[in-house]
């Protein structure tokens, strides 16, 4: 029994159906961690992108080194670090928040590159045209650059959302009860790993196929010439 649901081991199919509500609870945690991690990655990634583009090397250089460091070290080690080291300095976060934060930090290194590439993809002629029309730099950025960068940024961000979802099982190492951890516990207690782990694989396959189709749809639906902010 887990979360108040009994399992039925009479046949593989009955077992699969009986643990669905249990896996569903794990799946909701997976989705929550994905969404929270994605929001952190979007916010922090923007901060890195701005710092890396700073005119002063004193600011841009450390930002580049930090993001490179984040990108080149494994998520699992970063999670261990956040979960076991921060409490020694008085910062105690619940496992779920640590996990979502870790995911967000890891992916912020990737999203910062997406922002940079999206903004750089807006050609210099666009900026020159804006200057010829006597736009201020701020006005150029919000009314010319950003609207054209959005259709380039959004699909890449969608792909990272799917990647984050696939990395959520790593959060099980800091005791987050996401779907794989839940399936592992069911396996530990019934000595039957085959059905729960296969179901997690199938659930993931469904989720990523749906999400990838959504990203593709978004890509075709977004107008390539840009989205006005008004």
């Amino acid at each position, binding site marked *: 029994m887990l979360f108040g649901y009994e399992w039925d081991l009479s046949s593989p199919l009955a077992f699969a159906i009986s643990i669905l509500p249990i896996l569903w609870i794990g799946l909701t945690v997976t989705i929550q961690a994905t969404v929270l991690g994605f929001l952190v990655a979007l916010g922090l990634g923007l901060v890195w992108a701005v710092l890396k583009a700073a005119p002063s090397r004193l600011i841009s250089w450390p930002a580049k080194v930090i993001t490179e460091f984040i990108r080149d070290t494994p998520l699992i080690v970063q999670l261990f670090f956040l979960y076991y*080291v921060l409490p020694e300095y008085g910062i105690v976060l619940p496992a779920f928040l640590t996990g979502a934060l870790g995911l967000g930090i890891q992916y912020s290194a990737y999203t910062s590159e997406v922002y940079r590439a999206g903004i750089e993809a807006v050609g210099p002629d666009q900026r020159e045209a804006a200057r010829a029309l006597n736009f201020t730099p701020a006005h150029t950025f919000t009314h010319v650059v950003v609207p054209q960068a959005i259709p380039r940024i959004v699909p890449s961000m969608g792909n990272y959302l799917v990647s984050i979802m696939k990395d959520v099982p790593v959060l*099980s190492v800091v005791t987050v009860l996401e779907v*794989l951890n839940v399936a592992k516990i069911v396996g530990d207690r019934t000595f039957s790993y085959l059905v729960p*782990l296969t179901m997690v694989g199938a659930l993931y*396959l469904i989720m990523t196929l749906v999400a990838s189709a959504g990203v593709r749809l978004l890509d075709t639906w977004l107008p390539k010439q840009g989205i006005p902010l008004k």
Partner: protein
Amino acid sequence: MHWTEYFGPLMEGAWVTIQLTAYSTVFGAILAFGAGIGKLSSNLAIRAISIAYIEVFRGTSLLVQLFWLYFALPLAGMAIGIDLRLPPVVAGVLALSLNIGAYGAEVVRGAIAAVHKDQHEAGRALNFTPRQTLRTITIPQAIPEMMPSFGNLAVQNLKDTALVSLISLGDLTFRAEQIRNFTQDSTTIYSMLLVTYFGMALVLTAMMRTLEAYVSRWRTARS
């Protein structure tokens, strides 16, 4: 235990991590070429198998694949009467190779598809068989296109090896966990662990850049 004494066990673990990365990158590259070319095949069966492989391993989490191979596969084998119990090192290398191979397959497919159509036509005009065209014209031109992505995937693979510590394989992360359980010195040990991975990633990136320069050497000669 003084912190300098951590180096011994950590280096032992680092060596396991390096071996895991090397094996799974090489096997992953073979799988990537197989599935990437297979996805462009005119044979429906080969195409279907390649697409199924790529979608399954790109669509699920690496940790799910690792646990499935290590915990679930032996039970599946038992159900059909075959002993499929894998030692951790085999399950680890297999999961890492299959996973990175599926990502690499998309890179290979993209790079081959990006070779200009004229090249295929020229091959045909010279009476090359499709196989000859692929081997002597398309792939040599596609490989330099793949290298930057392969470099990223190799670093990705290095980072992913840390997950095998969860199936009791004595890699770098596993050794660090052992030391931490023994000394409770989390700050030092995890900082050392992060720095070691970072150093290894930098070396790996430099190696992939060298390899990239080597396979693209004909390009600079021409332009």
